[in-house]
């Protein structure tokens, strides 16, 4: 009876254990393989990248010195991480979850595979499966290109993808495309990921308030989301799709903190008038003193020159 209860309890607890662990990778991503075989060079480069990007949370592989987080980052050398397929590790590194950031924009595809190569070096049982054909391209032998255009009335940017080969040009259908606007520190995704239709076209809505330059131009870049199938094709085009932005200098306005020339008018006036008033008063006093002095000398001269009015004797008042 106790045995049964124990078994049932265990079975009941199982899903709750699994809950914390469960980080489901989409089916199509699981089988993804590296395009190059792992060797000492890739491991070395992978170690360098690991130390920069992963070490602060996952610690040194095999030493169990990862930091305490929920969900736990775990040691990459342990089974918890090693039981993942190459594709799963790749996906988790590039997408991230919770506290684990996405490394899609930080590391290139090749760099993530090198990190995987480093992580795998701690697994003795690991045998690498390398992708046989580098590009399992949907359009073998064709050159895939993209064309961007802006429809001002509908506020839509259309991306047209086509594959050109000796036999002619065909639209690339069913391909995931991202539209990115160039900003000072990187590319910003506009709208969501779209899939090309039967004409090879994907339409992206442009928000009205998206700032462009002084003429409203924005440099757009379109990229395929699945490099494995379509190669790392991207196209940069400048389109007049943004809002006209005329930058205003933050030091343009008059302010207390600004330079002397841009001080508030009342400060300039008050200060100027104050200085004038002080100096005016000083000069006023000086002029008055001079006036008194001149009047005094005139009086003295008059007294001395007129014979009838001789200087009174000093003891006159007594």
């Amino acid at each position, binding site marked *: 009876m106790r045995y049964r209860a124990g078994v049932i309890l265990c079975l009941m607890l199982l899903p709750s254990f699994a809950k914390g662990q469960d980080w489901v990778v989409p089916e199509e991503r699981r089988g993804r393989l590296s395009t190059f075989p792992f060797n000492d060079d890739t491991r070395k480069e992978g170690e360098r990248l690991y130390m920069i990007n992963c070490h602060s949370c996952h610690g040194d592989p095999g030493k169990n010195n990862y*930091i305490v987080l929920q969900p736990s980052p775990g040691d990459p050398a342990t089974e918890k991480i090693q039981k993942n397929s190459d594709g799963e590790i790749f996906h988790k590194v590039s997408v991230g979850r919770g*506290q684990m950031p996405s*490394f899609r924009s930080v590391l290139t595809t090749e760099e993530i595979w090198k990190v995987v190569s480093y992580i795998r070096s701690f697994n003795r049982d690991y045998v690498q499966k390398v992708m046989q054909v580098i590009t399992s391209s949907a359009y073998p032998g064709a050159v895939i290109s993209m064309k961007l255009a802006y429809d001002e009335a509908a506020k839509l940017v259309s991306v047209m993808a086509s594959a050109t080969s000796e036999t002619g040009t065909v639209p690339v259908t069913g391909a995931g495309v991202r539209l990115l606007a160039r*900003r*000072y*520190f990187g590319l*910003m995704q506009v709208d969501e990921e779209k899939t090309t239709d039967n004409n090879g076209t994907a339409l992206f809505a442009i928000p009205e308030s998206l700032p462009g330059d002084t003429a409203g131009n924005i440099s757009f870049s379109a990229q395929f989301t699945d490099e494995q199938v379509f190669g790392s094709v991207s196209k940069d085009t400048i389109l007049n799709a943004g809002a006209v*932005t005329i930058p205003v200098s*933050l030091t343009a306005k008059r302010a207390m903190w600004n330079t002397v020339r841009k001080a508030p008018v009342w400060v300039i006036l008050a200060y100027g008038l104050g200085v004038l008033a002080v100096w005016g008063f000083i000069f006023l006093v000086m002029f008055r003193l001079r006036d008194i002095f001149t009047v005094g000398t005139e009086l003295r001269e008059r007294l001395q020159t007129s014979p009838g009015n001789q200087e009174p004797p000093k003891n006159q008042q007594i």
Partner: protein
Amino acid sequence: MDKKEEGSRSNDLDRVIENSRRDFLRKITLAGAVTVTGGAAIYSGHRFEKAKHREGYVKVLTEDNRLVEIPVEQMRDFKPDLKMLQSRGREGIPGRKWVMVIDLSKCRNARKCVEACQSAHHLRPYEYHINTLVMQESVNTPAFFMPKPCQHCDNPPCVSVCPVDATFKRQDGVVLIDNERCIGCRFCMAACPYSARIFHWQEPSQHEADSEKEYNVELNVPHKKGTITKCLFSADRLREGMLPYCVSACPNGVFYFGDENEDAVTNGTTKETVRFSELIEKNGGYRLMPELGTQPRVYYLPPKNRIFEFEEGEKREYKEEKA
């Protein structure tokens, strides 16, 4: 016997003569070869010099991407001098309006921002341009970590009080301090409501190694004893199109930095660029002490939905415990 001797002697003489002739021929051939080679070398050298002189110009790519030729004699090694560093440092980068967003829900006191900043600006471990503070609004509310750099206010009280125009605001919003002008009165320290400024009471760290360097107002290195220093939004990195030191050093995705004119901010960890206005609006962004009217250029996102427990102390300490 005598005849034999004579014969052999004459034979020897012949051999000597023969040898000397051979020697002579060998020597003259060698001398000839040396003369020809030397002559050729001198001639080719002469031709090379002549050709070089005939050109006399080098191709140079100018700042505005033009390929020009300038005479060799007029070439000078470029080294930005103090005058240039000062004038471009005062002017700032036209058309930009830098803005920083700090997501408090992600900060767990890794202190990488502090370390990166201190190493870039040659500061000691107790001298902060940016610091991570432990905050608790009231007894019943949870504590959280708050990185606090200079707020680069649009209405900066520190600049208003400076009597010598040493601290100033630029057109791109960055508030800088010019150690060439600073007299060390510390009025700005008193005026700043965010306590963003520090004073060099002693000789700055690495002052001997830095003494030969030209003073760069955008990096504030080399520092001077008896002057103020503060966070600079890494103005030197912005000029190169790179994110500030603290922003790119953060391992937890706390910092966003960008240009408000472009309405875009880039996360330093994931390098993901998002709309600034959307980020602020969706996450309830706020600024510190808005009642003062200082209008900071640093925005904070509240510490909500944290997926880790707040623990006093640094991340490094957990590691030591585990090890």
